[in-house]
């Protein structure tokens, strides 16, 4: 579904991603871990099409199409979803209005009729149950004054509404309380199918008890320096990143 080959990206001339290779197949869950500042969010942003990151080398193929050629909104319409590490506030725009605009633009791109108000609201109701989100939250301005956990939960609610093919969850677990973590993970798991895939960026092994990954990758200094199965996450939890850093840093000297 997604093939990343030798991806390099920089900000203001500073290289941040320095040769990422990754293959994600339909039905899979990939976890990306790594120390602060290693480039995890950058990778997510580059995939989503954020323009301040300049791709200097490499390619990304998504369902047979050159992802890097597409405008951010077209990537979204093609089925790429990013749950933001820091969701943005949009004053005066309710989640409901926002999502309706988004969903109908996605549908239009796919040649589908727009959803009328009744159908849209019943879809909302259904998806609200999935992440146990309160109606009151959705009639408020998007993310404005939401608590950290509410913002994250709202991201997953949007994901549920838009039914993406590839979901990238950037530290969705941070800021969630224990119950919310379980609820949100349940939601993600229920949305999983053999037709879509998920990339979860996290610092904590605990999330991976709920959303069980097929692969775990360690990102360090803009490269994937180690890949393994979910056991790798347990090992990292126990030993930290130093041993990997040492391995990498001594190899590159």
């Amino acid at each position, binding site marked *: 579904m997604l093939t990343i080959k030798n991806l390099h990206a920089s900000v203001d001339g500073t290289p941040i991603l320095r040769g990422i290779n990754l293959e994600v197949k339909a039905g899979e869950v990939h976890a990306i871990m790594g120390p602060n500042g290693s480039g995890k969010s950058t990778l997510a942003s580059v995939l989503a099409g954020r323009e301040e990151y300049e791709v200097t080398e490499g390619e990304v193929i998504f369902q047979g199409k050159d992802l890097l050629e597409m405008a951010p*909104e077209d990537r*979204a319409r093609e089925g790429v979803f990013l749950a933001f590490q820091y969701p943005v*506030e949009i004053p*005066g725009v309710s989640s409901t*209005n*926002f999502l309706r605009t*988004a969903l109908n*633009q*996605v549908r239009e791109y796919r040649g589908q009729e727009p959803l009328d108000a009744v159908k849209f609201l019943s879809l909302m109701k259904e998806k609200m149950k999935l992440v146990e989100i309160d109606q009151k939250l959705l009639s408020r301005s998007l993310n404005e004054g939401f608590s950290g956990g509410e913002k994250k939960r709202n991201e997953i609610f949007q994901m549920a509404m838009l039914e993406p093919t590839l979901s990238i969850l950037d530290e969705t677990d941070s800021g969630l309380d224990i119950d919310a973590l379980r609820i949100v993970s349940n939601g993600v798991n229920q949305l999983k199918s053999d037709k879509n895939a998920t990339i979860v960026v996290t610092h904590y092994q605990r999330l991976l008890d709920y959303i069980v990954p097929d692969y775990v990758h360690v990102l360090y200094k803009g490269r994937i320096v180690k890949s393994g199965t979910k056991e790798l996450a347990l090992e990292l939890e126990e030993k930290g990143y130093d041993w990997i850093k040492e391995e990498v840093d001594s190899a590159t000297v």
Partner: protein
Amino acid sequence: MSKDNQILEEFTSKEYEHGWSVNYEADEAPIGLNEEIIRWISAKKEEPEWLLEWRLKAFRTWKTMEEPEWANIHYPKVDFQKLRYYSAPKQTKKPKSLNEVDPELLAIYERLGISLNEQKRLQGIAVDAVLDSVSVATTFKDTLGKLGIIFCSFSEAVKEHPELVKKYLGSVVPMTDNYYAALNSAVFSDGSFCYIPKGVRCPMELSTYFRINAANTGQFERTLIVAEDESYVSYLEGCTAPQRDENQLHAAVVEIYAAAHAEVKYSTVQNWFPGDKEGKGGIYNFVTKRGICAGDHSKISWTQVETGSAVTWKYPSCILKGDNSVGEFYSVAVTNNMQQADTGTKMIHIGKNTKSRIVSKGISAGKSQNSYRGQVQVMKRATNARNFSQCDSLLMGDRCGAHTFPYIDIQNPTAKVEHEATTSKIGEDQIFYCNQRGIDTEDAVALIVNGYAKEVLNQLPMEFAVEAQKLLALTLEGSVG
């Protein structure tokens, strides 16, 4: 160029939609301004002697006045001798009903999306259509007449209801109030008149639609709204003009009189031609709007969505004379390209327990300058006066300017006045967030801007709120990413 600027650039390249004009035979005054011209206009309109005298008095005062320069706007001086002060579409005889109005004139309004045909009109809105200097048609007169509501052109009111006109004309905005108001008093050509009798709730929106068509013609209309005790009316004004290289002058006066327990809502969606991207052409919009809450418990509420004009100078105000009266001002002012707006309000608290509320949302894009100027004045006897002001500015790009000039003058220690102001930039983050959900940049800007202006748009009658939303999006098309 940063991404912000680049997208801004694209957005601001949007063309004005109502930039066409139509050729029709017109009845015109000679170019220039002097007492002869004023007599000519007055004669043309078959006005009574007292009105001619009133005009001449205004003209004589105007000649002694100086054009104001305190506003934060810069434009080449208007040569008042080079303007034409009266231009009316030639109609062989005065139309008695809509059926007799020249179809060509009706077509102009159809093209603007305003149907004057009562059957086709959306229910619940009566329209007075003003083309250049005169009112061409007023709809739903009979329906309103049954309730005792008078809604007609100003000229007709002078003929049919001279006692009312004489009583209220200039009672809220004295002829010598300011430079442009004096000019308007001297040369005003037409406008709308509205009278709501005691205890009547006007069952439909009343609306005036102003269109400038002729070249080199100033438009000087006058609107007078009188709401008697316990009456209610919601009034809407819309405006467009053709695209021309030369600046055109629009200097209107609106007066509102609200008696005890009366409520008047006045909404404006202003879309005069703003000039081109380089700042060539466009309307100079110098308008005096004022309402008086004369009776106790009366209320006047101004809502404006200002998107057009090259230069805007406009401060809809409320004189809160009656005890417990309420004044409100809700404004969205958008400037793009080279537009300049200096707009705001005055709330003058005279009566006891008077309340005012000001919500101003400025949006600047391109190289435009957008200023809010507001005055809150609490007089000695206005015990327990309350004011709340919220002035927000939204900037798109880094070549535009937003300015806030609040003036507060309090002469009674029991007054409570609150003022809040914010300035924000439309964020690349917000737009990217929308993009990531599948919303393209143009719609993202529209969504964000409408969200920002929501509190004001919510004040508009439903149908116009939708129109205003579209207009905001259109004005800013191409201006951010």
